[in-house]
């Protein structure tokens, strides 16, 4: 197989990685804005795509040092880069399928380390740089962003004490602006990675062949203009395609967020990304935003943070480097076997990607249902408190299993104190008139659903209830004990 064909395949694969990077990380900038209703979902990804494109074209500093000193660049061949891309793409697709926000940067670095290790041996990998440039920032990023977001949220809500209705509206506008800037910063940081990868391949191929083709590139030179353009377009297209699964986890899965909190999250993330870029640390935007979301959740409603989701995400982060590295290593060994091995890796990539896409189709997440939470709060009223947890009878068939209900206050309209809340996503949409037996010992004791936060919100409207459980006067009826019409079901 000629070097030109290999270079062409690697460049296309790099653009595919860039695309997956875009849709995987679209959530970083826009998840909170979509969940708080600052932007409509489609509007959010379009704006994020434009800002990513602009960001990718703003700077090429990172592109010149893509491996960041993690591996010996002089030993990296186009086959190794190809294998690394395959590892990173597959890990990105796998975590997307699970809806896990993991770092695309760590995926490509892990896969590059694995591929280089498998082909060139241990000496080609600079282990200390892996610790100082990947592992340490991965620990520090969410922590710092979380603290910043925690404090910023406290400040924001201190100013809102006793504030009249509508006071949060300006935070919505501010959040719109801050999320655009996070998208810009993301484009600046991540758009360059693909430029760097393509540049690395072009340099490697030039050195290998001594070629002076139009695509040839001398070591240490700036990326070609067409590389900047296609890399920027690929990440922008990826961002526009949405990555709704991850957006749902980031915006709804970890904590319930209001507009002032969204602004605190975006501002903390932006500050962390800009500061780290300036001081030469490559923080993952995914880690930064995830940490900030947990920080704001802890600051406002500590009991509302979904630690199970956070734990799954942390496990994903820990696994990213070794898992992508393992796939990268396997792909590199195959790709180095010659044309047959190279094509085999390509086929494996296409088949695996198609299989993941097929699996994802079973539980489709799109712009229309991105704000549906995995758990819903159900406020109900009952004639008497249940003597057993509401996990049996007809209710169980719809809502089971119920989670501990002590984390949220009772709904003020419930006739009897009943915190029927934080239930796993129902198998069917609940309506405000639904009635269920809740007590196995006393089948006559039923609960009437008053309202849920499950429906996708109108982005222009305030949430149906505030997070402390108080009903929003604009969306609820004040009659005591009466069933409240649910928000628009979708």
């Amino acid at each position, binding site marked *: 197989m000629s070097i030109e064909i290999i270079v062409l395949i690697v460049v296309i694969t790099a653009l595919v990685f860039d695309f997956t990077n875009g849709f995987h990380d679209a959530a970083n900038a826009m998840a909170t804005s979509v969940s708080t209703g600052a932007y409509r979902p489609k509007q959010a990804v379009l704006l994020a795509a434009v800002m990513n494109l602009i960001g990718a074209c703003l700077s090429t500093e990172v592109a010149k040092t893509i491996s960041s000193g993690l591996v010996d660049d002089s030993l990296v061949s186009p086959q190794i880069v190809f294998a690394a891309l395959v590892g990173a793409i597959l890990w990105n697709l796998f975590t997307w399928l699970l809806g896990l926000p993991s770092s695309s940067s760590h995926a490509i670095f892990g896969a590059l380390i694995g591929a280089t290790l498998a082909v060139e041996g241990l000496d080609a990998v600079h282990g200390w740089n892996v610790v100082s440039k990947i592992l340490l920032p991965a620990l520090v990023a969410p922590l710092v962003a979380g603290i910043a977001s925690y404090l910023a949220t406290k400040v*924001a809500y201190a100013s809102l004490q006793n504030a009249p209705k509508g*006071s949060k509206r300006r935070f919505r506008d501010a959040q719109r602006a801050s999320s655009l*800037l996070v998208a810009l910063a993301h484009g600046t940081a991540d758009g360059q990675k693909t430029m760097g990868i393509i540049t690395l391949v072009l340099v490697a191929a030039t050195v290998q062949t001594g070629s002076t083709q139009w695509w040839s590139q001398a070591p240490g030179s700036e990326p070609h203009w067409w590389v900047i353009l296609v890399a920027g377009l690929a990440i922008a297209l990826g961002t526009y395609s949405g990555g709704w699964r991850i957006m749902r986890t980031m915006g709804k899965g970890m904590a319930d967020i209001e507009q002032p909190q969204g602004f605190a999250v975006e501002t903390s993330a932006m500050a962390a990304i800009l500061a780290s870029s300036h001081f030469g640390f490559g923080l993952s935007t995914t880690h930064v935003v995830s940490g900030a979301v947990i920080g704001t959740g802890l600051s406002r409603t500590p009991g509302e943070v979904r630690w199970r989701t956070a734990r799954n995400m942390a496990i994903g982060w820990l696994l990213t480097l070794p898992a992508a590295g393992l796939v990268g290593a396997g792909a590199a060994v195959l790709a180095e076997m010659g044309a047959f091995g190279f094509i085999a890796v390509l086929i494996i990539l296409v088949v695996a990607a198609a299989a993941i896409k097929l699996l994802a189709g079973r539980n489709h997440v799109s712009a229309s249902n991105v704000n549906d939470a995995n758990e819903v709060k159900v406020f109900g009223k009952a004639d008497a408190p249940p003597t057993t947890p509401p996990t049996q009878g007809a209710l169980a068939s719809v809502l089971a299993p119920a989670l501990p209900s002590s984390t949220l206050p009772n709904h003020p309209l419930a006739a009897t104190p009943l915190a029927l809340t934080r239930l796993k996503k129902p198998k069917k949409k609940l309506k405000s008139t639904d009635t269920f037996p809740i007590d196995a010992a006393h089948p006559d004791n039923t609960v009437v659903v008053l309202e849920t936060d499950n429906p996708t919100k109108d982005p222009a409207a305030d949430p149906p209830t505030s997070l402390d459980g108080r009903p929003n006067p604009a969306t609820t009826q004040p009659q005591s004990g009466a069933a409240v019409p649910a928000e628009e079901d979708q």
Partner: protein
Amino acid sequence: MTIDWIALLQVAIVTIVAAVAIVGLMSLANWLLGPVGAESPPSAGRRLTGQVLIVVMALIILGGLYLIVHEHVARLLGFG
């Protein structure tokens, strides 16, 4: 090889201070621009101060952005 702990600490401090400062400015501006008491609108002085704070906040953010792109921008403008 050593880890640049000082730089890491600087990142942490700058992040926390900047985030709190920006959100603080926005919160203060929001408070100043909001109605006073029950329904009465803010005075001209409050409104102006609130708007100035929003401009200051925007300038801080733009300054941060400039830090990471200034070399490229300088090259584009022919100063690099």
